[in-house]
């Protein structure tokens, strides 16, 4: 169960109060009615699904009700920061799937030749 810092409530709260809301910083095209099928598919379906640093949206649905953005490492599940909706993407150093984070329990397993 994650512990998530709500930038509006200014407090860490249990994941139970939140709903994940997909990748962040995907703006609905201004001219959506005019875009091509490819562009629509890109906007609506294609996602980065990063392994490592990801930008995502959460809603504090059972709290203040606000949507906000978060930067999280999808390997360690550690939050790097959370910030209010509408703010630009917070630039952070790429953590990637670095040595510092342990990917799985099985990371302690050795080589199988």
């Amino acid at each position, binding site marked *: 169960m994650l512990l998530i810092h709500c930038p*509006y409530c200014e*407090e860490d*709260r*249990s994941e139970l*109060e939140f709903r994940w809301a997909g990748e962040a910083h995907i703006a609905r095209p201004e001219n959506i009615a005019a875009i091509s099928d490819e562009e629509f598919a890109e906007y609506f379906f294609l996602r980065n699904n990063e392994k490592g640093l990801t930008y995502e949206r959460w809603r504090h649905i*059972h*709290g*203040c*009700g606000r949507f906000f953005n978060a930067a999280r490492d999808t390997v360690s599940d550690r939050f790097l920061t959370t910030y209010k909706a509408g703010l630009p993407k917070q630039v952070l150093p790429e953590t990637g799937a670095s040595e510092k984070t342990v990917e799985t329990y099985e990371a302690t397993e050795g080589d199988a030749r």
Partner: protein
Amino acid sequence: MADHIAVRTLPLTGFHGGSSAVRLEAAAPAERISLRVRAEDVAALSGPLGIDLPVKPKTSSSDNGRTALWLGPDEWLVIAEGGSDVGNSLMQAAKNSGALHSAADVSHRNTAILVSGQGAAAAINAGCPQDLSLKAFPVGACSRTVLGKVEIVLLRTAEEAFRVEVWRSFSDYAFGLLAEGAQDAAV
């Protein structure tokens, strides 16, 4: 048609519970509005409502039997104890402000359970994941949160007393869970 004046049927009628450590009771009916105001208009609403809308997260303010609970950056739950049986003085007061806002009457949407006693926090923690220590959740603190599988608004009214606001159809569940929590808090 005087014989046709409707009488109220309150949710949680006949519910009682608790333990040696926790008292559980249904709160009396109250007027409530869900109030939405932009930051710049908060002051304009506070006057007519007769209460300062708190702007700090997780806080409430209380005056003259009215309590305003900060629920979000532009959202308050305003509760007026007692109040008229028909009509909503809070709605009228908000309207009188003339300021840009949204007020929706939710007097009947919510009901409240009063939880008190030395085990009150433990009883609520049977289903609520928030830290209810006095340090983290002092008297006057309030928050929308979850209780088991339902959403509640929690207000600490005294060191050992909470008001649990819950939508009416979830109130049986909330009461039942609090009753079990109360029992366990007395162990």
